[in-house]
């Protein structure tokens, strides 16, 4: 475990990288970097830099960190390198929440006003959390990993079908849904940043506390039990962490693909360390990845912008594939 000593160094580097890009992000947007220079005097430029670019860059970092953390917890908990944060049905739950919200909007005024306080963000969050609760009910708790995974898949498929049905019956919902599914940081406000930061702090603390259990789990379930770690409690808390982190991220930035899967993999290929460090590094990696992708999405086609989810899918997928092939060629284990 002497590699653990390299982990703090990596953490510092990833944090610096992420925050540097967040700052760089304040100079990127449809109005060009000139807005940055005039931000001191001009009210509108000031608003663009401080109230639009900074929160969205920070929001991208926080959202990426939440997804990276959730992905690392999921991969550790399910002992499956293919596990990602959306595994327990939260993605399809969030989509369904958005679909229901949008279709009610198009309909009667009563539903509109009663849902108004909740908003699109609230609807997505409630959908994501309800979907995980549904998964837990179907799996009758969190004690059997395989049952949990299967229930997650079933919930994902069923809720996805219901969402399709809604958009079939109400075609005007379809387009708006698509905007949500691609993911975008364009609408992130300071309030959203504060919410995500609070959730990230809570989830990181909880995950850090139970990281020891994930270390034990990596030796197999039977061994973990014999080591006397509080497995049942840890399972409940960690599933809670996954759903809370994913729900908060998805509600604010939509379904951003691949960050949650790729971040823990990249961390694993960079440094070998205990789960406590791996969780933190995955969060930092996820944040750095997403904010990088977001700034690129803003710059590539300026003054137009790409949905960031498209970019993370292409870049993350490509990089991961390259790593896998490279590792296979050199005979190393990924």
């Amino acid at each position, binding site marked *: 475990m002497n590699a653990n000593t390299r982990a703090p160094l990596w953490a510092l580097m990833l944090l610096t990288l992420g925050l540097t890009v967040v700052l760089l992000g304040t100079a990127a*947007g*449809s*109005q060009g970097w000139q*807005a940055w220079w005039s931000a001191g005097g001009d009210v*509108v430029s000031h*608003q*663009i830099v401080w*109230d*639009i*670019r900074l929160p969205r860059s920070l929001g991208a970092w926080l959202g990426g960190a939440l997804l990276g953390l959730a992905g690392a917890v999921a991969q550790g908990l399910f002992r499956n390198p293919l596990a990602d944060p959306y595994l327990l049905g939260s993605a399809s739950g969030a989509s369904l929440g958005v679909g229901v919200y*949008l279709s009610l*909007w*198009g309909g009667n*005024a009563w539903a*509109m*006003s009663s849902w*108004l306080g909740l*908003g*699109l963000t609230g609807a997505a969050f409630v959908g994501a959390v309800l979907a995980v609760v549904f998964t837990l009910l179907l799996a009758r708790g969190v004690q059997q990993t395989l049952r949990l995974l299967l229930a997650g898949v079933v919930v994902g498929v069923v809720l996805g079908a219901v969402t399709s049905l809604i958009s*079939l*019956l*109400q*075609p*005007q919902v379809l*387009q*708006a849904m*698509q*905007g*949500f599914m691609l993911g*975008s940081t*364009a*609408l992130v*406000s300071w309030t959203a940043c504060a919410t995500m930061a609070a959730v990230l702090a809570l989830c990181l603390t909880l995950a850090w506390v139970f990281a020891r259990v994930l270390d034990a789990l990596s030796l197999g379930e039977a061994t973990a039990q014999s080591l006397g770690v509080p497995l049942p409690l840890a399972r409940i808390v960690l599933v809670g962490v996954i759903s809370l982190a994913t729900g908060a991220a998805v509600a604010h930035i939509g379904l951003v693909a691949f960050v949650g899967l790729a971040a823990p993999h990249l961390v694993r290929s960079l440094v070998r360390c205990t789960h406590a460090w791996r969780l933190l590094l995955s969060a930092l990696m996820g944040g750095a990845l997403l904010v990088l992708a977001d700034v690129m999405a803003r710059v590539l086609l300026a*003054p*137009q*912008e790409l*949905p960031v989810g498209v970019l993370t899918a292409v870049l993350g997928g490509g990089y991961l594939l390259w790593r896998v092939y490279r590792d296979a060629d050199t005979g190393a284990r990924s």
Partner: protein
Amino acid sequence: MAEFFRVWAQSLALVGFVWACAQPAQAITVRDDRQQKVQIAQAPQRIVSLLPSLTETVCALKQCHTLVGVDRYSNWPEAVKSVPRVGGGLDPNIESIVALKPDLVLAAGSTRGADRLQALGLNVLRLEPRNHNDAQRVWRTVAQALHVPAADSDRAWQGIQAGVQAAVQSLSPAARQQRVYFEVSPAPYGASASSFLGETLTRMGVSNILPASMGPFPQVNPEWVVQAQPDVIMAGDSSRVSMLQRPGWSRLRAMQGQRLCVFKQDESDMLVRAGPRMAEGAQLMADCLNRAAGIAPAAMGSAK
């Protein structure tokens, strides 16, 4: 031609300016489709519109010169083509909109980001024109918000309604007897009697094979259409090819008799937008129905 437009725009701007100066500044409060009160202190001079029908409404109220930004789908009248684009209703570019310093943003109820724009301190009016009643309400609300005198806006609206009425009356008695299927996209989605298009058809007295109870734009089972045997089929350009390939459709009376009207994209815009061009849209449909009723079997191609 460009010179003409420039002079025209300038004189409009001048008239607008003189008019604005002559009016005492008076705050107006309007209610948007979310029942939120929006206060507009004086006649807006910098408007961003995020919905084509709202853009057209602003221009029809002779306030085109106040538009400083429009969504990427706004394409009428000609003057808006030179106005900066600020993304679409689904992906509005928040930064571009804020940079334009608008004093009023017109958005659809479903526009993502309307809340965000409001939180950034912009005056956002959310309006969703979906049917004929909506169209009138939205027209009035926009006119109020733009500080256009009620007498002027009502007169203009009556002009539009007179146009719709003229289209209705141009129908021959035989044309009125026909049953119509209107296909909006080749999935296929049809326009039922409760959609904006369907309401125009209802005003003409022709019947729609899709009842209002199916919702405005139901996905249609192609078999349903074969069974319903419409006399006339109207469709967007994208449907033409796929229609011919659907099993059983070659035996539809409307297809055999070539009583098929295919509308080009710019014509479809007039038909589906619940805005000031509804009379032109109605006339397009009336012409199609008259032609279909007038032809002997196998004498007509597509409309236009």
